[in-house]
């Protein structure tokens, strides 16, 4: 083999094989699988602790979680997910056409997090804290972990929104962000069922 000085001008992304899915989507799907395991473990740990406690849940003397208000909030998040799916559909036609749907998804997602925060303030007032026993610890841990993921998703949505407005939104970015946001949205009802009901 001759050791020719190799010209490494970046070989422009000539597709070397038809990818099954874009790199962004494959990478994100794997990441989400790992995240699902993370949340599954939290839920399993919570279930075990809750069952070991025996009797009623929440334990006597502990504040009850705002089941109904959160149900409404769940609907807000689901709506945000639907808006995101619509944004994806529209951008398949033309990137700029996804702007309004993206904006809607962003606003609804932000509203979800804000409402959750409002609820937390109320619960803290009622005396439910991280240290007040397994009920509080697991509540803040699981819901807080989801909230952090939601905030990350909102940032990704905001970036997508800004890029869409200035016409620089790449399809792959949107595809990755959409997949992630769908994960955040669909995870929530499962957590709601486990933690609140």
């Amino acid at each position, binding site marked *: *083999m001759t050791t020719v000085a*190799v010209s490494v001008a970046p070989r422009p992304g000539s597709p*070397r094989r038809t990818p099954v899915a874009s790199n962004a989507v494959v990478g994100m799907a794997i990441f989400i699988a*790992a995240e699902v395991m993370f949340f599954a473990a*939290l839920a399993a740990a919570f279930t*075990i*602790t809750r069952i070991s406690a025996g009797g009623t849940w929440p334990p006597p003397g502990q504040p009850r979680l705002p089941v109904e208000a959160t149900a409404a909030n769940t609907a807000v998040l689901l709506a945000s997910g639907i808006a995101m799916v619509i944004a994806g559909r529209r951008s398949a036609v033309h990137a700029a056409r996804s702007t309004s749907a993206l904006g809607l998804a962003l606003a609804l997602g932000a509203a979800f997090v804000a409402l959750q925060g409002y609820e937390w303030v109320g619960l803290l007032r009622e005396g439910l804290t991280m240290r007040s*026993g397994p009920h509080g*610890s697991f509540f803040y*841990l699981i819901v807080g972990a989801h909230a952090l993921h939601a905030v990350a998703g909102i940032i990704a949505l905001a970036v997508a929104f800004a890029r869409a407005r200035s016409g620089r939104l790449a399809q792959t970015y949107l595809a990755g962000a959409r997949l992630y946001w769908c994960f955040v949205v669909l995870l929530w009802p499962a957590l709601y069922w486990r933690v609140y009901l």
Partner: protein
Amino acid sequence: MSDAHAHHDEGWVKKYLWSTDHKIIGMQYLFTGMLMALLGGYFAYAFRMQLGFPNQPVPGFGLVSPNEYNALVTNHGTIMIFWVAMPVLIAAFGNFLIPLMIGCDDMVFPRLNRLSYQIFLVSALVLLASFFVPGGGFGGAWTAYPPLSSQAKFSLTPAGSTLWLLAVALEFVAFLIGGINFVTTVMNSRAPGMKWHDIPVVIWMIVIASIVFMASVGPLVAGAVMLLMDQQFGTGFYDPIRGGDPILWQHLFWFFGHPEVYVVLLPAMGIVIEVIAVFSRKKVFAYKMVLYTAFATGILSFFVWAHHQFVAGIDPRMANVFTVTTLLISVPIAEMLFVTIATLYGGSIRLDTPMLWAVAFVAEFLLGGVTGIYLGSSGSDIYFHDTYFVLAHFHYTFVPIAIIAVFAGITYWYPKMFGRMLDERLGKLHFWLTVIAFNFIFIPLFITGAAGDHRRIYDYTKFPDLARPELQNLRALATVATVVMLSAQVIFLYNFFKSMRSGKRAEANPWQANTLEWLAPSPPPHGNFAELPTVHRGPYEYSVPGRDLDYWPQSDPPEDDAAPDAAPEAAR
């Protein structure tokens, strides 16, 4: 220094520290791993001296206090598994080999790749920092069972245990990013013509290991977050008095912990199979079988973890089930070993240094795997649990994996990595010293373990039953052998760094192997291949009847196009 590099268009920092080139990142992982291995070895030296020659000052360390002993043992294990085995076997070899062996110019996410190493580096620094905070490094064993790990009043290391946990968690993030990169790259960037069954075994193994890692790490991260909160925010997830459950941590830990052993085993097995095929000049015996076996191992590895908790008061029904699954998983493992032996059988074997290491892997790992069966039967494990028998068991698996197979890989790919050949004489000397000393460390420990040595004891002189001279002599023997094995590594380091400057220059394909990395120049330039290759056949076409060469590179165009007068293709 900077003058010598002036003709490069990038600066030294940009080229070696801030690079997105997969080979540089692989080397960063390799060198960091080697440094950490030296540290882990030093720790082992210190605590082994305390066990072999109790309560005497250790040369180069001083008197080992009980707390220091605990911190040394804990961090020895942690470092060797998370900062040596994982980064070297998966990250270093994965980064270096994947793009080269599948014939592309880099990973699909080069910047994420760089980020992965940087996070890893930070994690190593956090771990190092944990030795210097008030209270010292964490000493609650690498498994970090609560309540010892969760409350400062038990661990006595308020800051050390949190930093330790943080370092481990950061390290997982680094490998999660790396794993995503590996799997996506292999899926989407293979050279044209490379079908699933043309991918070299070692790449398959790294991919399967990454998948198993990513699917099992989530629960441990969840458990670690809970443990961190117990340590720092006063929650009681693992505190039975406050409604928590310490067994919960064991489940979350071992849910990851057992798959983890296969995460490191599979790449090691891949390296060994690769080397054995090349140096026996034979096709890998039953390539597809190896793949399916590796898949089966990956799947089964999720169903055995509770064998670590047989004595922890878990549900006896569960203990029964896990006994059976544990015995089941030895079947695919044994099968992979048989495949390597079948590949050796009837080959024209060349005993170069890489091959010596590969064969030693098979021999030594066998012993580790077989002793696992004793431990996997819940009945006998009641006796063996937490004795030196367990310790010898897992060192007979981990040392072949993280040391022997890694040396097989390093000596085999060294010409590709650095463009020069290692010294064979020094290599063989290093091999024999290391492997012989290794057996002299752990065979005595099997015996002391079977005689009842509990594995977390600082000073056996306090236990009349165990302080008997025949046992103490075995402990001293193991310690002396440790010193010999560690000293032998000096030979390797000398050979490694000296050959880098003055070794014989390596051709592109010094071992006459088939896989694509040998097509690139040694060392491969940025971008790897002058012209990205196309694949025409599987990776193990050695000694094909009717060919005058006994190897057949994957990228060579079929004979009948290139040379019309060649013999008819018998093998295809």
